[in-house]
């Protein structure tokens, strides 16, 4: 079942001679229960693409469907309400409300959606326990480590049962070990809870936890990897199972191989 579908999405900044095309006619789809990584070098358009998929940025052209609704056509107010209901977020940093405890941060999305009943509270508590934060429920963000904060953010991104879960460089501020733990748990929860998950990352080592990798270069989808072994090789995990491939990080910046833009449509895992 389709969770998210983008059709010929384009984003052009500026106008006339100074116009810059950040994303150029990109189409992609993510099924429910599928976790996809969006990778590419700086300036490839992956963050702009994520911002559009999140309803934070209106596409210049094309359509984005989430829960059957074209979010590009919505007003600012409608998009804000839509984000609160159908989209879960984990950002690079500044993820949590500093004056709320871990539990209250997670409950915030339930409160926003009018679902903060006894059952909801219990679910929030269980999710945090599941993420290893059972002892930290009533701690505020400044009393948590970076990894713990990121896990709270993941819980908050999932608690309101959104259609789509998006993460922007969720491991940027974490050490290698914690980064692996966080993304692994994220992937498990996306699969278990049957959400459509997209993660933008520059750290290719994190791709070992995803089902599909979409590489972007210069605003296009340059390549799509669905073969498990190929994904593991990209993540540097095939030869050295403990990961930690220094090459992988560098590789992310040097991916230049291009394929036809709509190549992913022909791949077996493609959904559109």
């Amino acid at each position, binding site marked *: 079942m389709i969770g998210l579908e983008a059709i010929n999405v384009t984003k052009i900044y500026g106008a006339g001679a100074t116009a810059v095309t950040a994303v150029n006619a990109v189409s992609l789809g993510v099924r429910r229960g599928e976790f996809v990584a969006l990778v590419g070098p700086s300036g490839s358009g992956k963050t702009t693409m994520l*911002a559009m998929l999140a309803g934070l940025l209106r596409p210049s052209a094309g359509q984005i469907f989430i829960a059957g609704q074209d979010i590009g056509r919505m007003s600012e107010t409608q998009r804000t309400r839509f*984000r*609160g209901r159908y*989209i879960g977020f984990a950002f690079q940093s*500044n993820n949590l409300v500093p004056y709320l405890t871990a539990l*209250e941060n997670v409950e915030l999305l339930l409160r926003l959606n009018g679902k903060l009943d006894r059952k909801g509270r219990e679910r929030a508590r269980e999710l945090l326990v599941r993420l290893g934060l059972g002892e930290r429920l009533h701690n505020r963000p400044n009393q948590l480590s970076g990894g713990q904060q990121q896990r709270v953010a993941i819980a908050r991104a999932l608690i309101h049962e959104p259609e789509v879960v998006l993460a922007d460089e969720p491991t940027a501020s974490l050490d290698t070990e914690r980064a692996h733990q966080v993304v692994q748990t994220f992937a498990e929860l996306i699969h278990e809870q049957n959400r459509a998950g997209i993660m933008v990352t520059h750290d290719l080592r994190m791709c070992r936890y995803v089902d599909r990798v979409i590489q972007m270069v210069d605003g296009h989808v340059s390549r799509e990897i669905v073969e498990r072994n190929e994904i593991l090789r990209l993540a540097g995990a095939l030869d050295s199972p403990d990961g930690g491939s220094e090459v992988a990080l560098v590789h992310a910046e040097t991916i230049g191989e291009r394929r036809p833009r709509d190549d992913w449509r022909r791949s077996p895992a493609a959904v559109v």
Partner: protein
Amino acid sequence: MSMAFYLAFKEVWRNKGRFALIAAVVALITVLVLFIAALAEGLASANREYIEKLNGELLVFQANTQLSTSASRIGRSRVAELRRVEGVEAVGQVGFSTAKLIPPDGGDEINIAFIGVEPGMPGEPEVFAGQQLARSRGNNVIVDEGVIARLGVQVGDLIRLKVTRGTREEFYDLTVVGLTDRRQYFFQPAVFAPIVTWDNIRADGGQPGGELVSNIAVIKLRNPDEIERMKRRIEAEVKDVEVADKKTAWEALPGYTAQQSTLSTQQFFTFFIGVLVVGGFFQIQTLQKVAQIGMLKAIGLSNWTVGLTAFAQIIIVNALGVAVGAAGTLALTANFPVTVPIVLTGATALAAVLALLAIGPLGGVVSVVALLRIEPLRALGMAQ
């Protein structure tokens, strides 16, 4: 809406120190503003109390005296003319002079306003204990609360008045027959004597055989709503007089308007400083929270919720500061002796408190607008 109040309350509660600090600043500003208001009211009352409480609507002055009670002279014959004007219910002569009260225990002499009034006529204050003045002659007086507070006199007591006539000091013993509320005139507590007695005692009065002259006449109208029309009619029918309502009369008291406008300016500037301080605090807070607000908007909080959260915080902190400051000021002023010109009336306090409650919203409006303008994409560092 509940989300906004939830976030506002949580943030204030979990950052008690920071918010208490700004509430304390608001409290101090409240104390300052209320004290200035109370001082303005106290000084104004000390000046105008007697005139304000007069049981008449119009005051008659001699023409071309710029409504000066000390320069004006109104004689008996003029009063008779005033009484004949259609629509005038009653006219009372009122004379002002000063004297000193000698305390029975030998303490410092007290400067008083020595006021001559016609018994039973406009100008004579109502007593709350004892009796009104009975006759135009006789050594009976009514004293106001200012005198009572300083001397502790009661009905039936004798008070000793000192008047300096030329270079000679003269003493008069007068019987207190009635007590009235505060009726200060020109910063001095008041002693009211029958007009003839007053004329005999006052320093430059008592010319034998001459007409009984007072400073002003107080008119009670048959219809108190006809002030303007009656003022014109009296000025037309009686020669050489100028008629003023009570407010015009007290505003013409020497220094009254200048003093009040100085205090109003001080009050306004204190208020303005308050707006800037609160505005500055919340603006700095907003700047510190740009990323956090961007995140909240990104996860689905509307601009309305974000704005209302900030506004609710401003209101909470401001109201807390004003409440503490006002309670402190009330407690302080309640214990001030009657001799200190600080009067915090309900109306003055309410007006100042309402203005102070506006400090927060006025100061915070810039920061709320700044919050509304935060774009989540830019705030989260995702903008191109």
